[in-house]
């Protein structure tokens, strides 16, 4: 069974078969001592893990380090992988835990790209490149869109970690409640509760005019 996951910006990603597929086979080979087999896993999942880490951490450079660490953890844990679900769900779980732990270790919140704590353009250092829609009619719209996106990032950064994780997985990664629950190791009901709270917080932070 091949599962197609529709992600944002019209990119369709084809996930591996439920039993692990080529990735599962690669992990089994890694567990058997074939380290080179891990290249398949890296190649298949690097984009989505980098994107997830960036969304959770809000910093492109830190996301690269984090994603690398996530792959290394996956490599070390390959023998513990059980093909119950999809490999990407397993990797997501490692990545979310790793990123949340990184955020906790920071202690001091410094999501410059997310929160714009430093204000102004400096706050965008390391942020995902902003490429306004081509249909944007003029610089004023571009400026407004840029300002709005900065406000959104700041509001998302202010969410508690557990709410942000759910929001990122459901809203941006396109995971279902069930998949998100699997990744986070919580119930689907808890996913929904966190999402409701996150949206309520965002609604309050962004105001009634929030919108694209």
């Amino acid at each position, binding site marked *: 069974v091949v599962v197609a996951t529709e992600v944002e910006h019209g990119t369709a990603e084809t996930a591996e078969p439920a039993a692990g597929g080529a990735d599962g086979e690669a992990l089994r080979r890694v*567990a058997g001592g074939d380290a080179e087999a891990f290249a398949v896993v890296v190649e298949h999942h690097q984009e989505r893990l980098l994107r997830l880490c960036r969304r959770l951490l809000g910093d492109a450079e830190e996301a690269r380090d984090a994603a690398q660490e996530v792959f290394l953890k996956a490599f*070390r844990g390959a023998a513990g992988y059980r093909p119950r679900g999809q490999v990407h769900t397993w990797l997501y779980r490692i990545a979310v835990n790793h990123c949340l732990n990184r955020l906790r*270790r920071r202690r001091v919140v410094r999501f410059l790209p997310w929160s714009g704590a430093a204000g102004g353009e400096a706050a965008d250092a390391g942020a995902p490149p902003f490429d306004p*829609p081509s249909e944007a009619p003029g610089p004023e719209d571009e400026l407004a869109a840029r300002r709005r996106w900065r406000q959104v990032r700041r509001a998302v950064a202010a969410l508690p970690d557990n709410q942000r994780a759910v929001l990122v997985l459901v809203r941006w990664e396109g995971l279902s409640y069930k998949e998100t629950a699997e990744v986070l*190791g919580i119930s689907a009901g808890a996913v929904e509760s966190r999402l409701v709270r996150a949206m309520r917080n965002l609604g309050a932070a962004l105001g*009634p005019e*929030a919108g694209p």
Partner: protein
Amino acid sequence: MSIDRTTREPTRRDRRELLRWLAGELDEAGDRRLRRRLADEPELARAAAALRRTWDGLAEPPGSAAGAVPPGFAGRVMARVREEAAAGRRLPALPGFGGPVPAWARAAGAAALVLGLAAGAGMGVRLPRGGEDVAAAAAAAGGDGVRAAARGGGEERLPAAAETAGTVGTAEAAGSAGLPAGGERVAASGAADESPDTGAAEHEEAAELAALYAELYGAESLADGLATDAGSLADGYAAALTAAFGGEAGT
């Protein structure tokens, strides 16, 4: 009644329903039902519109995900993987990992774990009340000893262990837990602790234990070491007893 008349806000139930709709969680029948209600209930429709504005406002600008993979990223990852493989630092298989670790080393590790936990308990280091993180690590490793210890109560967590075990760590901070990923970072995180005086002894204890695990298993963190040890804890006890008293102790 879908709107709370006192607050003019949608009820909790309706808010959930609207979010399910936005997230694509409603089945066809649920979607039809909600659309009928939206047509009939203007206040619900207004609430839905507001929620949708917030939801749509979260859309990343086009192009923001472009270039997510920096050139050479996979190559760098694989270089690290090869380094680890060559150095033999990869942890042994989680289930039943006997591997190359000699019995005396496992015994010493188990004894150190027991002493560390006991000393930690004596000095106020408390294990998780819910024990989810450690329990998850123990569950992944098939060990009951640490899981049982995790149920013992307390607030500290072992987040790094949970990462590969599959549970989201809920630690306040690895620093405050005194059990960060990597013994070498214990001192640093101890410095960040809000109560360094009371935590110094625990950090020192944790650092020693982490160093021992690093030596025994090549574990990168104390938590990894604990997870590794969980599966062989029973063997460790037996070997420790045998080493201490000889004969058939512990068998």
